[in-house]
């Protein structure tokens, strides 16, 4: 069954049909959010939230658009919210002087293994939009036009993001 049929079933009140969409795109959205956020728990949270949001806004979904792209747009916006939230929290904790205490609490061996040093270094090199654009381009094979739709910007801007991201990665990988 294709996405459009599932969506029309959901709109007719069949809430369970949405499970099919979740199972179809869960892995891709998780991968996408993890690539942007770099944290397993946050990626899971944002993925769940993105699906919930898409469920409640299904009526505003344009069937002429790809559902996957629409879902990516929601997930991207949620990731950006999360990053902003994290930034303001970090600023606050820095002010309060609790930074060290929090880092110690978070630093458990399981997490260290998961967030490999290499990955975190790459994440730090790119900003949110560059990371998103490059992930969609390399992992999903999206065209600049589709990425522009997700990021809500011009195609030319997407090309600049990708170029910058590649340049930064190139620099980083050459140093290594």
């Amino acid at each position, binding site marked *: 069954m294709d996405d459009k049929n599932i969506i029309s079933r959901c709109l007719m009140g069949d809430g369970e049909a949405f499970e099919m969409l979740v199972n179809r795109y*869960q892995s891709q959205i998780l991968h996408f959010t993890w690539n942007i956020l770099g944290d397993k728990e946050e990626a*899971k949270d944002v993925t769940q939230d993105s699906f*919930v949001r898409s*469920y*409640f806004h299904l009526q505003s979904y344009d069937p002429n658009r790809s559902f996957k792209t629409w879902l990516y747009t929601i997930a991207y916006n949620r990731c950006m919210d999360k990053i902003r939230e994290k930034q303001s929290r970090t600023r606050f904790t820095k002010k309060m002087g609790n930074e060290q205490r929090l880092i110690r609490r978070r630093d458990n061996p399981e997490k260290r293994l998961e967030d490999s040093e*290499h*990955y975190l270094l790459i994440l730090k090199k790119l900003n949110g939009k560059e990371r998103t654009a490059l*992930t969609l381009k390399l992992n999903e094979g999206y065209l600049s036009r589709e990425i522009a739709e997700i990021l809500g910007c011009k195609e030319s801007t997407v090309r600049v993001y990708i170029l910058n991201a590649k340049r930064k990665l190139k620099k980083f*990988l050459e140093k290594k």
Partner: protein
Amino acid sequence: MCKLIRFFYLLIPIHGFRAFLIQKHFAACSVCQKEWGMDQSAKGSFTKPEWIAQEHSLWPQIQEKIHMLGREGIQSGETKKIFLFPRWQWALAGLALLILAGIFLVLDIGLIQRSKKAEVSLALKNPQVNIIHAEIHGKKATPFIYQTSENLYIWFGEINQEED
């Protein structure tokens, strides 16, 4: 990617021939090979971690959230919509209000000060006049005073005895 590849794409419309030329070029060009290698390593940097494939379906948690939000969300849907405007719009509106309030405050203070100044200058220019006694031909007279910002007019009239 070096410029030659772009030329191939632009100038040669035949797919097979173009692919052949690109392959030939790739085998020999170190710049293109390096670029390709960089792309591949960049792609490798965004690896899919194993836990994603092993992750159980998120549906039960999503379903729970949908039920929870569905109950309260539908009721408060309208009020929530108010906050769906982008933050910059709220910030802009706030700023506009502040500017307006500032303009009003400045104007208001200016007006108060101007009116106070006017009162003082008026008081200095036109001192109060008290008429203690007025008489016309030995009879009591009534004073009339009319004061403007520039002049003070005083005149006297006889009192009609019959009225008294």
